[in-house]
C-alpha cells in the first residue's frame, strides 16, 4: 500500500514542493498562473504534523458513509447477536453461556456440527479438484469456450432452484428421479429380473413359509396328493398374458403340484383352493430337496402345474428359490437418512464446479508458457509438468477457490433446506439451517439462534482472516 502510494506523490513532487513553496513566493504566480490553487492546497494535504495523506478531518469525512453502513449492517448486528445469545428464549433472563452449552450437549446439534464438518472437509476439496481438472482439460480441446459455458451455467441458477431440481433428480421412483432412472436402466441392461416380485404365501398359510426369500413347504410332501402352492400379493395383471387358468396337476406320476395366484379378483375365492378365475403362475422354478440337498428341479407350465418326472418316490421338501421373487431393483434411496448429506454435496458440486473452473482457467492462462516449455524440453512427462510446474504456479488461485468454498460450505443453507425431505432434515441438518429453524422456523428461541450465529461466525472468521491476509500480501 504505502510503496505504491509513494510513487505518484513523488511525481507530483508532493512534500518537496510544499516545503519549497514559501521560500520562492515570487516565482509561482509568474510561472504557472493557473497552478496557484493547487500550490495553495498542498500545504493542507501535507498537514502540520508532517503526515502523508489528508488531514484526519477530511479522512473521517470520506470514511463516514462506509463506517455508518458497516456499523449499522455488520458491527451492530454482531454485537447485538453476542448480547442476545446470552439471554433465554424470551430475551429477558440472563443465562450466561447456557445457550452455548446447549449447542454442545444436545444430540441433534452434535449431528448438525458433524454434518458441517463433513461438508467442510469434503465439498471444497472436490469442488477445487474438479475445477482444476476441468480447467486443465478444457485448455486442450477445441470447443473449450462452449464446454466452459456449459459447466459454468449452473451458476446462473439460484441455489434454491438448484435445490428444487436436485430434489427431483434424487427422487426414489425411477419414473421421476433421473439419478435412479440411470442406475436402474444400467442395471437392467445387465441383469433382467423377470419374475414375480412381491409374491408370497399368505401370512396365515400353515403349509408354506418364507426362508431367506425362498418359499418352502413346512412339511415334506410325497407323491400322495398334489402339492398346492398358493401365492398372493400380486396384481392379476402381473401374471404373464400367456398364463392359463390354474388347475390341479394330472393325477398319477410322481411328485407334482400347482403354483398359482390364489386371489380371486373381486374377492370371494377360498383360501388355499383353486377357484375359477385364478391363474397359474408359469415359469417358476421349483426344487425338490431331500436332507438339504437339491434332488431335482423343474419349472411350472402355463397353468401353474409342475411335475418331477424321474424322481424316486419319497418325502421331499419343495422350495421355490428366491430368484422367482427377486424384487425389481428400485434404485438407490438418495434422500434416505444414510445418503442425504453426500447427495446434497453432489448438488453443491454441480453448482460450484463451474465457478471454480472459470477462476482456475483464468489463473492457468496467466502462467508463463516458457516455464512449461522449458520443463517439457528438459524431458518432463505431462504428469510431471502438471505436478511440478502447473499446480505450484496455480497455488494462489487454488487457495482462493478453496477458501471461498470453505466459507460457502460453512454457511450452506438453501440446498439442505430444499433437497432434504422433512423426515430426514434432522439427519441432513447444518448449522445455518439449524440457526434459522431455532430462531424463526418454529423453534422461536432467538437466544439459542444467536448463539448458533456467533458459533458460525467464529468458524468462518479464521478463513476470512486467511483471505484478507493473502489479499494484502498480493497487494504488496
Amino acid at each position: 500500500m504505502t510503496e505504491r502510494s509513494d510513487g505518484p506523490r513523488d511525481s507530483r513532487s508532493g512534500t518537496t514542493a510544499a516545503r519549497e513553496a514559501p521560500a520562492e513566493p515570487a516565482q509561482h504566480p509568474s510561472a504557472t498562473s493557473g497552478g496557484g490553487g493547487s500550490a495553495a492546497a498542498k500545504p493542507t494535504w501535507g498537514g502540520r504534523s508532517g503526515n502523508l495523506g489528508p488531514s484526519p478531518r477530511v479522512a473521517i469525512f470520506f470514511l463516514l458513509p462506509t463506517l455508518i453502513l458497516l456499523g449499522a449492517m455488520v458491527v451492530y448486528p454482531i454485537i447485538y447477536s453476542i448480547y442476545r445469545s446470552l439471554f433465554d428464549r424470551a430475551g429477558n433472563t440472563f443465562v450466561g453461556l447456557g445457550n452455548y452449552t446447549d449447542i454442545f450437549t444436545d444430540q441433534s446439534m452434535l449431528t448438525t456440527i458433524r454434518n458441517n464438518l463433513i461438508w467442510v472437509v469434503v465439498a471444497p476439496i472436490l469442488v477445487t479438484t474438479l475445477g482444476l481438472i476441468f480447467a486443465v482439460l478444457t485448455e486442450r480441446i477445441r470447443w473449450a469456450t462452449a464446454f466452459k459455458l456449459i459447466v459454468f451455467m449452473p451458476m446462473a441458477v439460484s441455489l434454491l432452484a438448484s435445490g428444487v431440481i436436485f430434489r427431483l433428480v434424487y427422487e426414489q421412483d425411477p419414473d421421476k428421479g433421473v439419478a435412479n432412472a440411470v442406475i436402474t436402466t444400467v442395471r437392467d441392461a445387465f441383469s433382467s429380473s423377470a419374475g414375480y416380485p412381491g409374491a408370497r404365501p399368505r401370512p396365515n398359510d400353515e403349509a408354506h413359509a418364507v426362508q431367506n426369500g425362498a418359499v418352502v413347504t413346512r412339511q415334506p410332501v410325497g407323491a400322495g396328493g398334489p402339492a398346492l402352492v398358493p401365492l398372493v400379493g400380486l396384481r392379476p395383471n402381473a401374471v404373464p398374458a400367456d398364463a392359463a387358468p390354474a388347475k390341479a396337476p394330472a393325477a398319477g406320476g410322481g411328485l407334482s403340484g400347482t403354483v398359482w395366484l390364489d386371489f380371486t379378483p373381486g374377492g370371494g375365492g377360498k383360501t388355499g383352493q383353486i377357484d375359477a378365475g385364478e391363474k397359474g403362475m408359469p415359469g417358476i422354478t421349483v426344487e425338490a430337496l431331500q436332507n438339504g440337498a437339491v434332488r431335482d428341479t423343474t419349472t411350472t407350465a402355463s397353468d401353474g402345474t409342475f411335475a418331477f418326472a424321474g424322481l424316486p418316490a419319497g418325502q421331499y421338501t419343495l422350495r421355490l428359490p428366491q430368484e422367482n421373487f427377486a424384487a425389481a431393483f428400485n434404485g438407490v434411496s438418495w434422500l434416505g437418512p444414510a445418503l442425504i448429506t453426500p447427495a446434497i454435496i453432489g448438488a453443491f458440486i454441480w453448482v460450484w464446479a463451474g465457478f471454480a473452473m472459470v477462476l482456475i482457467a483464468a489463473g492457468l492462462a496467466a502462467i508463463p508458457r516458457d516455464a512449461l516449455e522449458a520443463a517439457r524440453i528438459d524431458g518432463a512427462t505431462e504428469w510431471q509438468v502438471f505436478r511440478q510446474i502447473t499446480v505450484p504456479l496455480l497455488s494462489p488461485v487454488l487457495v482462493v477457490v478453496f477458501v471461498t468454498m470453505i466459507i460457502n460450505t460453512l454457511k450452506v443453507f438453501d440446498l439442505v433446506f430444499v433437497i432434504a425431505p422433512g423426515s430426514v432434515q434432522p439427519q441432513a441438518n447444518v448449522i445455518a439451517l439449524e440457526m434459522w429453524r431455532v430462531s424463526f422456523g418454529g423453534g422461536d428461541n432467538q437466544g439459542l439462534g444467536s448463539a448458533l450465529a456467533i458459533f458460525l461466525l467464529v468458524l468462518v472468521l479464521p478463513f476470512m482472516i486467511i483471505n484478507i491476509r493473502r489479499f494484502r500480501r498480493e497487494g504488496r
Partner: protein
Amino acid sequence: MRTAKALAALAGLALAAAACGGGGGTPQSGQTGGATTSSAPAGPKPLDGVSIEVAAKWTGEEQRNFEQVLKAFQAKTGAKVTYASTGEDTGAYLGPRVQGGNPPDIAILPQPGLVQQYADQDALKPLSPEVLAEIDKNYTPYWKELGSAGGKVYGVLVKAAHKSLIWYNSTSFEDAGVQPPTDWAGLVTAAQTVADSGVAPFSLCGASGWTLTDLFENVYLSTAGPDNYDKLSKHEIKWTDATVTAALQKIAEITGKKEYVLGGTSGALQTDFPTCVTQVYGQKKAAMVIEADFVAASAAESGAKVGETAKFFPFPKAGETEPVVLGGDIAVALKESKGAMELLAYLASAEGGSVWARLPGYLSPNRNVSPANYPSELTKTLAQTIIDAGESVRYDMSDLAPSAFGGTDGKGEWKLLQDFLRDPSDIKGIQQKLEDEAAKAWK
C-alpha cells in the same frame, strides 16, 4: 338459557336460509349482506379504496378457492384484498414481519398455539363487537374458546378440517373384495386382504410429519378416551404413560408390516403430503391414505372423482371412543384497521361461509352454514357430523402444543413419530424421547 340458545340457533338458520336463497350463483348480492351482518351497510360500497392484506398458508387449489371468497368480499365492499402465501411455516413468515412492525392486516393461523403466542407478544388486536356478535351467533362456545387468549377473543375459526377420515380408492377395494371397515380389527383384516390382492393398503405421507401426528391423535383419542386426550394435550400426563404405549402399539400393527406400507417405511418417509394422495388416486399404487377431508382437492387434481373413486370412511374405532379430531385455521387481526374487522366479520358470517362452502375442499365450523351449500354429498355428510358432534369433538393435539414440539419440521413430535415409523420396534425409547422433548417445550 336454553331457550335463548335455541332462539339464536333458529334465527341463525333463518339467516342462513336467506343467505342461500340470495346467494344463488352470484355471491356478491348486497341484500343478503345487509340481512346477515348488522354492520354491513347497503348502498354505495363502504370500503372503496381500503386495501387489506391477508396472509395464509394455502397454496394451489386451496388458495384459488379462498381468493374467490376474497373476491366476493371485494365485490361487496369495494375493499382491495391481496393474498400472501406464508408457505408451510406460517410462524417463520409472520415472526419477522410482526417484529419488523409490518404485519399483514389479517393472518390465518394454522394452530391455536400461535394465537396464544402472538397474544403474548401483543401482536394481536382483540375482535370488534361486530365480529364477536357474528361468532356468538354462528359458533358453539368451544370454538370461541379456541380463538381466545388471556380472556380476550382474538380469533375466529374460519376453516375446519375433519381429520378422522380414511380415504380409499374404491376400485382397489372392489378388486380386493373388501368393504370399508368399522373397527380397528376390521381395518387390519381389510389391509391384509388388499395386500394379498397385490396393492399396498396404505400410502403414508411420512415426509410430512403432521400427517403422522394426525394418525396418532385419532388412535389415541379412540383408545385412551377424551379425558386422557385433554390431559396429554396439556402435558398433564407424561408421554411415557401406558395409554401412549397402547396407542403406539396399535399404530405399529399397520405401519410395522412391510407389505402394508407403499414403498416400505423408507419410501413412505420420502413421500410428502399431496404425493401420497397421488399415489392412491393418480398412480393407483396404494388403496388408502389416512388424512383429512382436504384430501378431496388433491384427489380431484389426480383425476379421481370424489364420491365415485375417491371415497372415505370414518376413522375406525381402535378403542372405546369413536374419534372425531378436527383441525382448523384461525383468522386473527394483526392491525387495527376498519377493513380488517370488516373482513373478519364477513369470514365469520354465514354469508361468507356459504360462498366458501360452494367450493370444493372446504368445511365450515359455522353452524349456520347450511350443509346444502356443499358441492358434494360427502362434504354435506361431513358438515353434518361436525355440527352434530358439537362439544364432544377434540381439536388436533399437535396444534395445541407449543410449536417447537408439535409444529416444526424435523423437531419434536413430528421427528419422533417419523423415527417411530422408521423403526416401530422401540416404543419405550420413542416415548422417552417424546417426553424429553415435551418437557423442554412446555418449560
